[in-house]
């Protein structure tokens, strides 16, 4: 079967071996790089750094692709968060999806029965034994319910939860040097583990579908699958089938700029509605999770990875726009606590401010009355300047241990959205979207149309 990778290494031992190797290599070469830094001049350092990053990104990519399992997502998040890698590698990592080993038809059937007590053909009018898509931790099959409705059935690879728990035990040992030095905070590992374990519970995902379905119902162009509860367990999720094509397929037909701009604005509006109004975010911005239709409707699928947002994003935005840290020490402290967490000492966090100034000068014009319009086709000069600042920012964050676990998932989502908009090549009046979102009638808050997102799995 095509899904079964011939080179796949099975078993915890092989996975552990690879993971350990990766951890030691990365940490090892990072330490080596820092040690050399002490002895080298500035010019040489830059060269060394570029070489280290290139080598590291190649290693991470190769090793992660071979790992495939939950460990891959973990490495993906870790490397994006610690920002050791250059932009290009990050982009590839953002596009990698966590894949469980493929299941042949007999295993998928067996797992379905193990979870629901009956074989799929006993519960559906039609069921395609061959999967049409890989999903996080499993695969998706087409089906038709007894009522004749088209459905997508997501089946999880058996016993994936215990495999993930094992992987985390191994990862914690493999990254021990990083944890001791404070570059890989244990809180970050906890956050990642929580996020990934949540993804193994499809009942939770069904709750998420319901939550976001109601929460985004104010945006008439959004399509979100509806869960069929009676055909769903924690390891099998049956939901309505969402039609549409992926962004790359859409772009092949060369849509007009106006259409691109429309879709771009819609993507941002969806994103902002989630973080500002729902305080929860679909955090897996893999391009395959967006399905577009010629009429401009946007389907959003795969709600396994959802991030609850505990801080005020619009407040953070206001700080950026008005440069509140300039006003007084108190507001600078407030801002830094908001962005990097309360545990980071002010003296250490303060060092990042000059970089943020540069960043804001490009993204957030001083004139707060003017609209913020971003051309995602990208001005190459601006892009390279942004890239440079990002890289410096990365270095600072790593050196000064400013890693904020709260941001792990949010950053991944942010980056994912950014690449999506770049690929789309849209020009968007961001301020207008923000205004629309902040003035939209509240859904649920007053009408109690939805509950708070379900609690985290521990």
């Amino acid at each position, binding site marked *: *079967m095509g899904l*079964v990778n*011939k080179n*796949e*290494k*099975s*078993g915890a031992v*092989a996975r552990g071996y690879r993971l350990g190797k990766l951890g030691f290599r990365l940490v090892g070469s990072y330490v080596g790089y820092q040690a050399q830094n002490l002895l080298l001049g500035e010019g040489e350092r830059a060269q060394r750094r570029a070489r280290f990053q290139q080598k590291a990104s190649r290693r991470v990519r190769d090793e992660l692709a071979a790992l495939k399992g939950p460990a891959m997502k973990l490495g993906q998040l870790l490397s994006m968060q610690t920002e050791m890698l250059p932009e290009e590698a990050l982009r590839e990592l953002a596009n990698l999806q966590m894949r469980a*080993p493929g*299941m*042949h*038809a*007999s*295993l998928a059937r*067996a*797992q379905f*029965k*193990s*979870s629901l007590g009956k074989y799929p053909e006993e519960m559906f009018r039609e069921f395609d*034994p061959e999967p049409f898509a890989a999903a996080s931790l499993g695969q998706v099959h087409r089906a038709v319910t007894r009522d004749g409705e088209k459905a997508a059935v997501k089946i999880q*690879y*058996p*016993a*994936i939860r*215990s*495999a993930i728990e094992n992987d985390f035990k191994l990862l914690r040992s493999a990254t021990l040097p990083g944890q001791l030095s404070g570059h890989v905070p244990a809180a970050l590992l906890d956050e990642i583990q929580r996020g990934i374990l949540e993804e193994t519970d499809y009942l939770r995902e069904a709750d998420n579908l319901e939550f976001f379905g109601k929460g985004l119902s104010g945006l008439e162009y959004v399509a979100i699958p509806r869960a069929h509860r009676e055909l769903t367990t924690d*390891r099998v999720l049956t939901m309505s089938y969402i039609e549409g094509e992926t962004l790359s397929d859409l772009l092949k037909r060369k849509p007009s700029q106006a259409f691109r701009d429309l879709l771009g604005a819609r993507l941002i509006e969806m994103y902002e509605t989630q973080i500002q109004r729902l305080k929860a975010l679909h955090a897996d911005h893999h391009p395959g999770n967006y399905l577009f239709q010629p009429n401009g409707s946007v389907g959003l699928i795969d709600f396994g990875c959802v991030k609850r947002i505990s801080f005020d994003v619009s407040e953070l935005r206001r700080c950026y726009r008005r440069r509140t840290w300039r006003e007084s020490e108190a507001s600078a402290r407030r801002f830094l606590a908001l962005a990097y967490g309360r545990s980071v000492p002010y003296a250490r966090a303060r060092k990042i401010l000059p970089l943020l100034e540069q960043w804001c000068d490009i993204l957030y014009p001083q004139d707060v009355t003017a609209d913020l319009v971003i051309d995602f086709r990208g001005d190459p000069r601006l892009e390279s300047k942004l890239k440079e600042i990002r890289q410096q920012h990365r270095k600072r964050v790593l050196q000064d241990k400013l890693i904020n676990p709260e941001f792990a998932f949010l950053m991944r989502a942010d980056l994912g959205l950014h690449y999506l908009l770049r690929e789309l090549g849209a020009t968007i009046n961001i301020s207008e979207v923000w205004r629309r979102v902040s003035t939209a009638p509240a859904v649920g808050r007053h009408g109690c149309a939805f509950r708070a997102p379900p609690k985290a799995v521990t």
Partner: protein
Amino acid sequence: MKRKTGRAQARTTRGKRVENKEKTRRAILRAALELFAGKGFYHTTTKAISRKAGIAEGTLFNYFETKEDLALYFFEQELVEVIEWYERDRRVKRAALAEKLFAIIHHFLERLAPYEEFIGAVYLRALAPASKLSPWSLQTQERNLRYLRFIRGILAEAEAAGEFPPVGDFGAYAFGLFHLAIITYWLRDRSRGKEQTLALLDRCLKLGAHVLRKGWDW
């Protein structure tokens, strides 16, 4: 003429007798399995079995001397059923080797599932060298051979199709031992829906197929 008819008659009578005996045998097994599934292996008495099967308790011993004989017969029947199922299932017959072997063991396990406690009890007994159920006992050899030929046939097909290098009859023996190991694991598997067994079975077969294709270079 007359003598010939007499002989033919004797043959039919004997045939009928054999057929009836087989029917009773199955009825006893069915009754026993139902009771095992409900009351458990150890709490089921021979009296209860004979009553449920509608025969005298003494007659029961004519068919099965011990519970071990009952188990032997059970496994024989199961093997016949699995082979027939495999021949009927066109989708599995077309699948790749690893999937075929997965499906065979899984089908076995699905059939054994209602009688887990019974199988567990029998399994322990089979470990004793003097047991009739031991894989080395002569009573089990006929069934073993049928099983080995069945598996060998499937492996030979895959060999002929170039799916992996020829392993000969050894492959069937090795798979047989693997099958026993999986049943042991399955009996001890306390995960929900026995999903750990599914994962182990899948991973082992994929690894096995990989090793056979590429050698130990992994």
